[in-house]
């Protein structure tokens, strides 16, 4: 057996071994033939997992729902899967998600709850929680997810792995089941920043080179962040030599999230309209209520949300004239307990868990800008609340800045990264 084949079969075995304890994987693929036939390339023999909304040739794409069980198998794999396979990587498993990507928890009425590798009593985040957990558990070094309002970066933060969302349209969504097509992005989780860039090389090789000496600044308002998220940002700023420097003031995060949620609701209802008419009772409760509400949304709400989106585009374009990389929390809190429906947010008091988890990620999905979540080391010995639970810091930039963000992310991990977190899995 070649080294590459062994790497792939070992990954499939790890996914299977962890499945019962964490609920992070729906299917472990039969990898024997694929491993043997893996193409030579920069990712030769690298095993990767795939969120349940990417087409895999010959398999039904379920999107975390029971409604799709009778759909036809995919004729071919999604474009991003094909690009990874062309670089030599091998798909080994299909990971857990919120039904139709509707949620930030990966608590799924049909397939169960995905548990956080660092504390199984807590959520992994969502909607790509299974993919983040698979990387955090060390099952695979790469896992594909999607990101509509933060579904890639939120679980990256809560599970302590790298999560990259390139700009809108940078990576083809062909073969990826839609949630809200105007906001949907391909994303991926990796064990290292270098691996995130290797995936970018494979799936979007024409991405612009990194900017030399990028201008980096903290972004606020950070009143939404809990104490741990603020501490993580401070650690990142300290590592970058920016602690105490001026903060770039962003447009109101809560209103930005409002616009994102209105557009998502309207687009999601449109995507699932036929199923809602035909089979509404078979949706899980969260998707059923949320998507139905989207179908009832007054048209004016969508018009207003799009109008504000246009305002935000201008605001952020102006902002990125004087700064290249923004540093801000990825999530306002560490992973909530599975039954915890509310979270305490800085000076905003107690709010609903959803959608609060997406308050820092939504702007960059809404505007299609690249962003990456970088895990920041939180030592178990500090005695602080939620000791040892991971948390991500988000780096975001203008269109085309993916490699600049990754360059700063590499610097961050070298100086205050989460390299110990992988070994601290419960």
């Amino acid at each position, binding site marked *: 057996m070649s080294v590459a084949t062994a790497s792939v079969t070992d990954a499939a075995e790890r996914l299977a071994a962890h499945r019962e304890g964490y609920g992070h994987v729906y299917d472990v693929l039969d990898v024997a033939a694929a491993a043997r036939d893996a193409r030579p390339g920069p990712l030769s023999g690298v095993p990767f997992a795939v969120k349940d909304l990417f087409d895999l040739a010959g398999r039904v794409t379920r999107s975390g729902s029971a409604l799709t069980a009778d759909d036809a198998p995919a004729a071919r794999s999604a474009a991003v899967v094909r690009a990874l396979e062309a670089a030599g990587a091998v798909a080994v498993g299909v990971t857990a998600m919120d039904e139709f990507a509707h949620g930030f928890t990966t608590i799924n009425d049909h397939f169960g709850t995905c548990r956080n590798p660092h504390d199984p009593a807590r959520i992994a985040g969502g909607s790509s929680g299974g993919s983040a957990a698979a990387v955090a558990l060390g099952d695979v070094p790469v896992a594909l997810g999607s990101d509509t309002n933060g579904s890639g970066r939120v679980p990256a933060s809560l599970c302590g792995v790298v999560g990259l969302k390139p700009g809108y349209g940078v990576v083809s969504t062909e073969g990826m089941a839609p949630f809200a097509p105007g906001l949907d992005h391909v994303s991926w989780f990796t064990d290292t920043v270098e691996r995130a860039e290797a995936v970018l090389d494979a799936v979007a090789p024409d991405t612009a080179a990194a900017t030399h000496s990028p201008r980096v600044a903290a972004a606020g308002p950070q009143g939404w962040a809990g104490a741990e998220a603020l501490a993580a940002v401070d650690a990142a700023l300290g590592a970058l030599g920016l602690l105490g420097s001026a903060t770039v003031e962003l*447009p*109101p995060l*809560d*209103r930005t999230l*409002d*616009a994102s*949620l*209105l557009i998502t*609701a309207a687009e999601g209802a449109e995507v699932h*309209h036929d199923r*809602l*008419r035909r089979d*509404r*009772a078979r949706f899980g409760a969260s998707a*059923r*209520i*949320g998507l*139905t*509400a*989207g*179908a*009832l*949304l*007054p048209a*004016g*709400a969508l018009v*207003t*949300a799009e*109008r*504000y989106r246009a*305002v935000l585009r201008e605001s952020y374009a102006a902002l990125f004239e004087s700064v290249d990389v923004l540093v801000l929390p990825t999530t306002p809190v560490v992973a909530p307990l599975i039954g915890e429906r509310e979270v305490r947010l800085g000076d905003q008091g107690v709010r609903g868990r959803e959608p609060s988890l997406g308050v820092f990620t939504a702007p960059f999905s809404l505007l299609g800008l690249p962003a990456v979540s970088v895990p920041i080391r939180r030592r178990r010995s500090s005695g602080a609340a939620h000791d040892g639970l991971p948390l991500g810091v988000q780096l975001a930039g203008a269109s085309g800045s993916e490699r600049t963000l990754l360059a700063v992310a590499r610097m961050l991990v070298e100086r205050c990264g989460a390299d110990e977190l992988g070994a601290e899995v419960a």
Partner: protein
Amino acid sequence: MPEEIAVPSGIVVPADEQPLVQAAVDEHVHRWQLLRELIEAGA
């Protein structure tokens, strides 16, 4: 209260679920209102 309602797009909501759906719609309408106020204030 009717046993079920059909929303304009033909989606049927059972009566016992109407309050939950209405609450979700109300949240969205509140968001819409806040955005309108922000835009009118010159955002």
